[in-house]
């Protein structure tokens, strides 16, 4: 996990400078076979556009919704998701996992 998310953090900066509301969601803890390791991140702007991934697709929709609230309120928030066994199977894992995602406003 070296030097990843290059364009994600760059996009966060570019979007913020372009006047958009921006939030950053980052995986801070994982248990079991979580699809993405701690440090994986997702950047979201106030138009609902997002880049990156915190779970390989299973919980991004929910994270984007929460991120909209965080952009509005400016208050960071911790989210917790269980990754369903079925979803875990699809990404090549034999069991489910749990992830905690920290969502913060940029700027």
């Amino acid at each position: 996990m070296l030097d990843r998310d290059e364009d994600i953090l760059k996009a966060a900066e570019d979007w913020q400078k372009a006047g958009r509301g921006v939030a950053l969601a980052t995986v801070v803890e994982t248990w079991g076979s979580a699809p993405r390791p701690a440090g994986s991140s997702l950047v979201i702007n106030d138009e609902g556009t997002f880049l990156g991934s915190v779970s390989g697709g299973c919980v991004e929709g929910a994270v984007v919704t929460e991120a909209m609230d965080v952009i509005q309120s400016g208050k960071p928030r911790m989210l917790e998701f269980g990754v369903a066994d079925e979803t875990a199977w699809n990404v090549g894992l034999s069991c489910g996992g749990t992830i905690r995602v920290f969502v913060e406003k940029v700027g």
Partner: protein
Amino acid sequence: MKLAILHELNAERAARRPVILVTDTESGEQRLVKANDFAKDPLRAELDKQLRMGKSASVEAGGKKIFLNVYAPTAKLVIVGAVHISQALAPLARSLGYDVTVVDPRTAFASPERFPDVPLVAEWPDTALPPLNVDAYTAFVAVTHDPKIDDPALLHAFERKCFYIGALGSRKTHAKRGDRLRAQGANDSDIARIHAPIGLAIGAVSPSEIAVSIMAEITAVLRLPPKEKEEAA
């Protein structure tokens, strides 16, 4: 995240300098710690460990939940010498996540047929190496067996403070190399940085096995704490 922190984080990453973003996940408070400032940080033990592993993690400190987000540059491997060992070493290093470049002024060796999909520079080290931005996140190996090529390359690796420097050759060959490099201005601590004979002692025979021993040694230098590193060497 404050825009100033994000801006600094992106600038450090672009410059290939490692940083760790420290976040109190309850209050949202954040600070960016540069590798040079680890020594005076209250979390230095944790910061050192996570950077060495290249892994982000949540830790508990002073009753607080802290997230350490590690931004380490992609490690590079520069191979000087487009020889048989390098043909095995380049794909192995790539599978381990390294950005690999092969340098050899001898065009018969540095040919795309011998090194499909690997960036090749068929120039002498003095021309080839400066544009590669060899740095502290670079592992550097010199395997041509030709002092005209290996020696200037090694001098460049000393100057750029590569985290690993290895050179092919027996102890006898290496002693002569030390004399030559000293005559060109290298000091004893530079010479001592060269891993020679190259690679961990695993009884490697074939070029592929030697490649495995080299990457094992590079991995040990990258990942192990200093004390255990000495024991492995």
